[in-house]
């Protein structure tokens, strides 16, 4: 197995008396999709918030490309290549789909000094935005105002925006949430398409999707890692069956 691009050690986050994330070690590798499963309240979103810098860790460390990034701000982490999507759609509703992605791509090339130029006309950023829209299957909807997109399209836009920032690591928080079967199938295809070039962390409730795309699965319960392994190992694990999948698994 190739070397991890993002790795945590003993990562913990306490909210008062509750250990939302407790002593979690997780590794992300380029070209692999690492899925995190767990019931509600298992600490999956908190884990993503810790990795993206939205929450500060109570204990433990996060290393990215060999450097300790435990104390970096969310915007710094984004700029060095850690992108995330949100469980609850988090876009610029009044802007067009294109402008949502263009703004995301602009973050890689702020050009703050060029205040006399038209931002929308700058080719490199334009092209990055169009590529991201295309990858997410939204090319035809580029000029539609984001708030007028369907729920599924807004979820696609959510991913397109992260892709437009050209990240190395993608932290995806339930990208399939609220999607219809057809949209979900498209998203699964998209995940498969982007996996070779990225290190992905996927938090998802849709079991079929997770087992279809994951190279590795970590199961969390009450903030702790219950089991971590290949999809086959997880499927076969008695502990996981008992704690999470139940008898139907």
């Amino acid at each position, binding site marked *: 197995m190739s070397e991890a691009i993002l790795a945590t050690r003993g990562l913990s986050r306490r909210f008062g008396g509750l250990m939302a994330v407790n002593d979690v070690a997780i590794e992300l590798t380029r070209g692999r999709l690492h899925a995190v499963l767990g019931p509600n309240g298992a600490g999956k979103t908190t884990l993503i918030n810790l990795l993206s810098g939205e929450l500060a860790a109570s204990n433990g460390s996060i290393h990215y490309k060999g450097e300790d990034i435990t104390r970096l701000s*969310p915007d710094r982490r984004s700029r060095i290549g850690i992108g995330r999507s949100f469980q609850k759609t988090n876009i610029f509703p009044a802007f067009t789909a294109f402008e949502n992605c263009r703004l995301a791509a602009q973050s890689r090339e702020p050009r703050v000094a060029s205040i006399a130029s038209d931002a929308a006309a700058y080719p490199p950023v334009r092209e990055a935005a169009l590529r991201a829209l295309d990858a997410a299957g939204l090319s035809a909807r580029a000029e539609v105002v984001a708030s007028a997109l369907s729920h599924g399209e807004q979820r696609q836009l959510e991913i397109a*925006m992260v892709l437009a920032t050209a990240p190395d690591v993608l932290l995806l928080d339930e990208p399939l949430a609220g999607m219809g079967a057809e949209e979900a199938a498209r998203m699964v295809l998209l995940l498969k398409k982007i996996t070779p070039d990225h290190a992905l962390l996927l938090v998802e409730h849709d079991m079929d999707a997770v087992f279809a795309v994951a190279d590795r699965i970590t199961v969390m319960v009450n903030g702790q890692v219950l089991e971590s392994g290949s999809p086959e190992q997880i499927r076969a694990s008695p502990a996981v069956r008992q704690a999470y999948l139940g008898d139907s698994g």
Partner: protein
Amino acid sequence: MNRRKIALLAVLALLALFPFAGATFYTELVTKVMILAIFALSLDLLVGYTGLVSFGHAAYYGIGAYVLGLMTPKYEAASLWLTLPAAIAVAGLAALAVGIFVVRVKGIYFIMVTLAFAQMFYFLFHDTEIGRGSDGISMNFKPTAEIGGVTPFDLGNATHVYFFVFVILILVFLFLHILLRSPFGRALQGIRSNEHRMRSLGFPVYRYKLASFAIAGALAGLAGYLSAMQFGFVNPELLSWHQSGNVLLMLILGGQGSLIGAVTGAFAFVALQEVYQSVTTHWQLLLGATIIALVIFLPGGLASVAGRFKRKLIGGPENE
């Protein structure tokens, strides 16, 4: 050329011809309104485009005015070319210094700390002898536009002042129009729309907000300078919270987040003020009622009227 551009050009032509009507009182009144329009435009950058509702914007307006008051010697005229850039720079630096503290906080807290800093500046001028206390400074001379032995225009002449302010209003408008189209301006609008997502996309939001606050302060200083230049007088009331409130009301009247709206708001505000003052001494009651009615029935301000009309004709944003 579309209808919007024709309307804009018509208004500009009207403003350009206005002083030739020969009514000095109204020439001076419209000059005052255009200065307020610059002030409103500066606040719109913060409120309408960055999402920072400042309730202390008059501080920078007043500082710009005081720069002229303090730089004007007793027995001769100060140079426009020296004092005008100085006013912009000092007001911008003051806003930068205050911004370092205030742009860290959000929402109601931002409103309160901007107000608190503005009150500090108010009392600095009101209670100390820096600017001769509450009496303020009366300037004996208007600044001179003389440069290299040539005086291109006379700032003691009401018509010349009118056109000078008119040109600056157009320049400020164009500056903001270009700024808002630029990557920097787009980022500000992104921050207003969804600050959280902007940070997560990698934008150093704090620095953007600080820059916006400083630019808005510098432009407010420019407006304050012009006001001091027009009236030849500065006092602490220029920095008072009433003044900060009035410019916010102009934005609400005209429609924040629209440059046209800011200018329209300044004109509407003074027009309402003049009309109501001629009717009753309790004019503030009428003005307040008008603004409440406007917020209820036209939440986008006067500038949204054209947009509403268009939407009715061609349907919602889905129809392209």
